[in-house]
């Protein structure tokens, strides 16, 4: 038999068939030609005649025409499942090719749809990546859900969540059957002298297995060994990536080299990776190097360590929590003093997820933001659904013909979903890119101490989330157009002739419903953002109880070796504050431990002279601040009774204290505390003054806890804040403070944390302000998207109604009447959206009530204002189409048909 291959391939050449398809077609045709030839030869024809006759039946044009039609059909109408590929996805390749061709042909539509989805996905990916790296997968931590923070509470003292003592730590550390690894940390500062000015380096003193407990590995060198965590042997340091980069320019040979910290040589043993930042402020880690007795029973209620514990394999969180209860019970049932105090103060050790401890405060703001980006994505989907519906009117003819040709409806529906998925996939890809940029910039503008040090990588879970969000969006925005096709009546479509097939009215109704939903969602976001904004503004106006204007602050940390006596420390602080007070432009200067909006300060129990404690009463408790005499004038804290500290309140004189009005009311109700004596430690201290209460940590949440002040001249401390009040620019005082410290101590001491007090106060609202900024951004996004959606629907409707408008104008309708015709249609949709949005906002506001400070969750002004903004913006979006309608030429319009 002749070889037909060449001949057949020549005929198939113009078709772009896949290689397998080509072979299959050629094989079938060759067989056919063989059979035909054989039959002709059997009938008496010569071989050549038979060949020509057989080939004559394979007309090239006919073959191409028929094949092309089949290929086109299979692209439009993917194969129904066959035995060999019985799946929903058969023929998907053809669908994809066809859809991408369609999308390429409408670049305007495709770009807008992809960008709209990209915006929604970007916002969601960004927020989720933050949630992911805060709560789900904190970077640098292995199996973060198995890592617990060990905390202590004193129910009776209203201390609900504080650090633990070394004794508590030892109890947990030795429970190997429950915790596979336990580590403790105490923040510290080192003076590092390398340049002309000493520099303060924030550090952490850690037990040797700190890194192992987190499951973190160094990128250079090693971490600590147990033998390095003992007194005298702890002169090793592990560098953070930041310190390695900043201080040593990423020196690859840094391991083994030494650095001078507080005048002593420390050997660098390792460098941690960029993503390990626990605790986040720490630039270096040094072994705590404590003697074994420090972990003994005497330190039981001396809490100053943060501890983390990793659950042993197979131990659940509930089991570990129950075990912490057992440990607490063991202490409380003792008959010694510790046992009694534990019982009377209702002391106990408890566990909480590590991420919850660090970022628990961000949970609610992030949930609010997550909810709002969810709304933004829904609005984006509604907009794209609207676009697709509008586009489907342009394609109605094509769809009608395809249905008439026998294309199955479910194939067309699948086609719509393929189109949605393709748009969503592109949108997701672009969105992830945008999210990376957004997170990078968001962490830059984020307030210190919240997420500014956050590394929020796009890891596998973030990718999965974004893809899932993208696909869910595809289903959402593909749904409306798909339902329209599924519900369309073929005969009516044919009857409408594709001009306005698939019931343009129905489609317009669905688009209007989508816009109503968008407007509703946008209002919810606007009201939420408005309430939080108002709450923020009101909170910012709250007085912290002192005057923060014109106050500059800094901090110093004295080297323990150089300042080993109270006299030396006091001489330093006296020299610095006197020097500062004598400078021109400075009205008052002071040093203080426990200054408001600083992270120093402590709290403890005390006794009141002449008062016996009832059984089970743990005794009075208060926060403590230790200040020099100029402190109250420097911060303008009002005196309520008695006197401020004076220069006479020094070592050797009678120990004195000042209490705030909360403490006075709490423990001396209806009495005068002036002259009364209190005791912490050995000595009785006389109360000489009562001052106003000051808010110490956040304008948004005052602890309401009483405060006792002691003179720094009587109780010395190696670390303190410096405070100056000036009539000049506070920032300009930074140099003055540095100079004063240098003149009191030319060698060792670095001044750090220099910033105006007003900045500290404002920073306490930083996370809140950041969340409100983000919320406002998302609400604005939602508002604009809803306005665009409305514009689209109204524009389309104006085009649809051109003829009607023309008739009305021909019959004498005035310009204003025509514009009103359009505007009123838009107004109806907006008002329906506002009604839905208001109802939803009221429900949500009730849920958020506890987060709203200084403003009612149902603040009528905010609700009304946001409704007004929404109505104004959305109606403005309708103005253009309305004007276009008013400019319709009646003659042209009548011919519009």
């Amino acid at each position, binding site marked *: 038999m002749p070889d037909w291959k060449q001949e057949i391939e020549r005929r198939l050449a113009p078709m772009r068939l896949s290689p397998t398809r080509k072979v299959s077609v050629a094989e079938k045709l060759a*067989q056919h030609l063989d059979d035909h030839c054989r039959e002709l030869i059997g009938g008496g024809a010569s071989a050549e005649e038979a060949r020509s006759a057989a080939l004559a039946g394979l007309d090239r044009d006919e073959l191409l025409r028929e094949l092309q039609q089949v290929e086109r059909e299979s692209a439009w109408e993917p194969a129904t499942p066959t035995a060999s590929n019985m799946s929903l996805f058969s023929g998907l390749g053809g669908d994809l090719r066809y859809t991408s061709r369609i999308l390429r042909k409408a670049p305007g539509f495709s770009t807008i749809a992809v960008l709209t989805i990209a915006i929604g996905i970007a916002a969601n990916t960004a927020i989720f990546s933050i949630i992911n790296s805060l709560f789900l997968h904190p970077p640098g931590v292995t199996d973060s859900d198995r890592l617990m923070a060990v905390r202590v509470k004193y129910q009776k003292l209203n201390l609900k969540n504080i650090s633990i003592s070394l004794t508590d730590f030892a109890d947990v550390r030795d429970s190997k059957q429950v915790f596979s690894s336990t580590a403790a940390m105490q923040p510290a500062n080192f003076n590092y002298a390398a340049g002309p000015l000493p520099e303060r380096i924030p550090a952490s003193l850690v037990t040797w297995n700190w890194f192992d407990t987190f499951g973190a590995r160094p990128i250079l060198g090693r971490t600590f060994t147990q033998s390095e965590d003992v007194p005298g042997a702890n002169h090793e340091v592990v560098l953070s990536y930041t310190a390695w980069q900043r201080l040593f320019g990423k020196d690859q040979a840094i391991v083994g080299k030494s650095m001078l910290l507080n005048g002593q040589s420390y050997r660098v043993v390792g460098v941690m990776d960029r993503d390990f930042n626990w605790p986040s402020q720490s630039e270096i880690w040094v072994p705590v190097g404590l003697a074994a007795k420090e972990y003994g029973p005497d330190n039981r209620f001396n809490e100053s360590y943060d501890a983390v514990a990793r659950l042993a394999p197979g131990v659940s969180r509930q089991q570990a929590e129950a075990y912490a209860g057992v440990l607490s019970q063991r202490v409380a049932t003792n008959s010694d003093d510790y046992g009694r105090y534990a019982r009377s103060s209702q002391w106990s050790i408890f566990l909480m997820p590590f991420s919850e401890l660090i970022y628990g405060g961000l949970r609610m703001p992030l949930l609010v933001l997550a909810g709002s980006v969810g709304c933004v994505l829904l609005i984006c989907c509604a907009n794209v659904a609207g676009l697709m519906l509008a586009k489907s009117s342009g394609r109605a003819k094509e769809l009608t013909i395809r249905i008439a040709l026998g294309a199955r409806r479910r194939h067309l529906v699948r086609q719509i979903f393929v189109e949605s998925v393709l748009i969503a996939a592109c949108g997701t890809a672009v969105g992830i890119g945008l999210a990376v940029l957004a997170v990078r910039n968001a962490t830059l503008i984020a307030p210190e101490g919240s997420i500014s040090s956050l590394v929020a990588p796009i890891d596998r879970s973030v990718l999965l989330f974004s893809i899932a969000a993208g696909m869910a969006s595809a289903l959402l925005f593909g749904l409306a157009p798909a339902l329209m096709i599924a519900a369309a009546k073929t005969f009516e479509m044919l009857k409408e002739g594709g001009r306005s097939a698939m019931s343009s009215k129905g489609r317009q109704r669905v688009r209007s419903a989508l816009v109503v939903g968008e407007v509703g969602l946008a209002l919810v976001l606007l009201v939420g953002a408005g309430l939080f904004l108002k709450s923020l503004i009101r909170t910012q106006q709250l007085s912290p109880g002192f005057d923060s204007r014109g106050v500059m602050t800094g901090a110093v940390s004295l080297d323990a070796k150089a300042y080993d006596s109270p006299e030396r420390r006091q001489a330093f602080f006296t020299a610095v504050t006197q020097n500062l007070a004598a400078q021109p432009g400075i009205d008052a200067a002071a040093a203080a431990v426990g200054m408001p909006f600083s992270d120093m300060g402590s709290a403890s129990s005390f006794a009141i002279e002449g008062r016996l404690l009832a059984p089970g009463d743990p005794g009075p408790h208060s926060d403590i601040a230790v200040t020099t005499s100029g402190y109250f004038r420097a911060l303008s804290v009002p005196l309520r009774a008695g006197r401020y500290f004076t220069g006479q309140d020094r070592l050797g004189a009678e120990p004195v204290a000042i209490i705030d009005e909360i403490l006075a009311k709490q423990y001396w109700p209806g009495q005068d505390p002036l002259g009364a004596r209190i005791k912490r430690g050995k000595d009785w201290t006389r109360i000489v003054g009562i001052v106003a209460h000051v808010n110490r940590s956040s304008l948004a949440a005052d602890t309401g806890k009483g405060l006792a002040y002691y003179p720094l001249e009587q109780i010395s401390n190696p670390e303190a804040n410096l405070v100056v009040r000036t009539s000049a620019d506070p920032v300009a005082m930074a140099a003055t403070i540095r100079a004063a410290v240098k003149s009191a101590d030319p060698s060792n001491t670095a001044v750090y944390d220099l910033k105006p007090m007003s900045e500290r106060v404002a920073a306490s609202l930083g996370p809140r302000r950041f969340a409100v900024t983000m919320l406002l951004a998302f609400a604005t996004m939602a508002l604009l998207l809803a306005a665009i959606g409305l514009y689209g629907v109204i524009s389309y409707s104006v085009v649809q109604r051109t003829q009607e408008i023309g008739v009305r104008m021909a019959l004498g309708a005035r310009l204003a009447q025509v514009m009103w015709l359009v505007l009123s249609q838009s107004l109806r949709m907006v008002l329906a959206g506002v009604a839905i949005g208001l109802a939803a906002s009221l429900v949500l506001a009730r849920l958020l009530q506890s987060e709203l400070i200084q403003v009612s969750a149902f603040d009528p002004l905010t609700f009304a204002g946001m409704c007004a903004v929404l109505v104004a913006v959305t109606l403005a979006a309708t103005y253009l189409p309305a004007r276009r309608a008013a400019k319709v030429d009646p003659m042209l319009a009548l011919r519009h048909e």
Partner: protein
Amino acid sequence: MANQPSVSELKKGSAEFLILSLVEARPRHGYEIGKMIETRSSGDLHFNAASLYPLLYRLEQRWWIEGRWVEKANQRKRRYYRITATGRKILREKRSTWQAFVTAVNRVTGVENA
């Protein structure tokens, strides 16, 4: 003459019906199908390879028929087509529609009584 529909036009509309009928009883290969159409219609209906194979492919794509390659010694492999369950259902529908159509046309045109 000009107003009379050509056989080829009528054929196009009924091609699927014809093929389904032929593979209903047993699997057949393409040439056999073409040949049977020609012989059973006494030569009135004829399908070229150029139109027959795309048509078979289309029916396969719709999962009305199922094709399978069969190899025999010293022969090219052949594709045999057999009807699927969907194909049977379609064939039943087409038969009854055709029956109804023919009856209706005959009633109208009086061919039946002639």
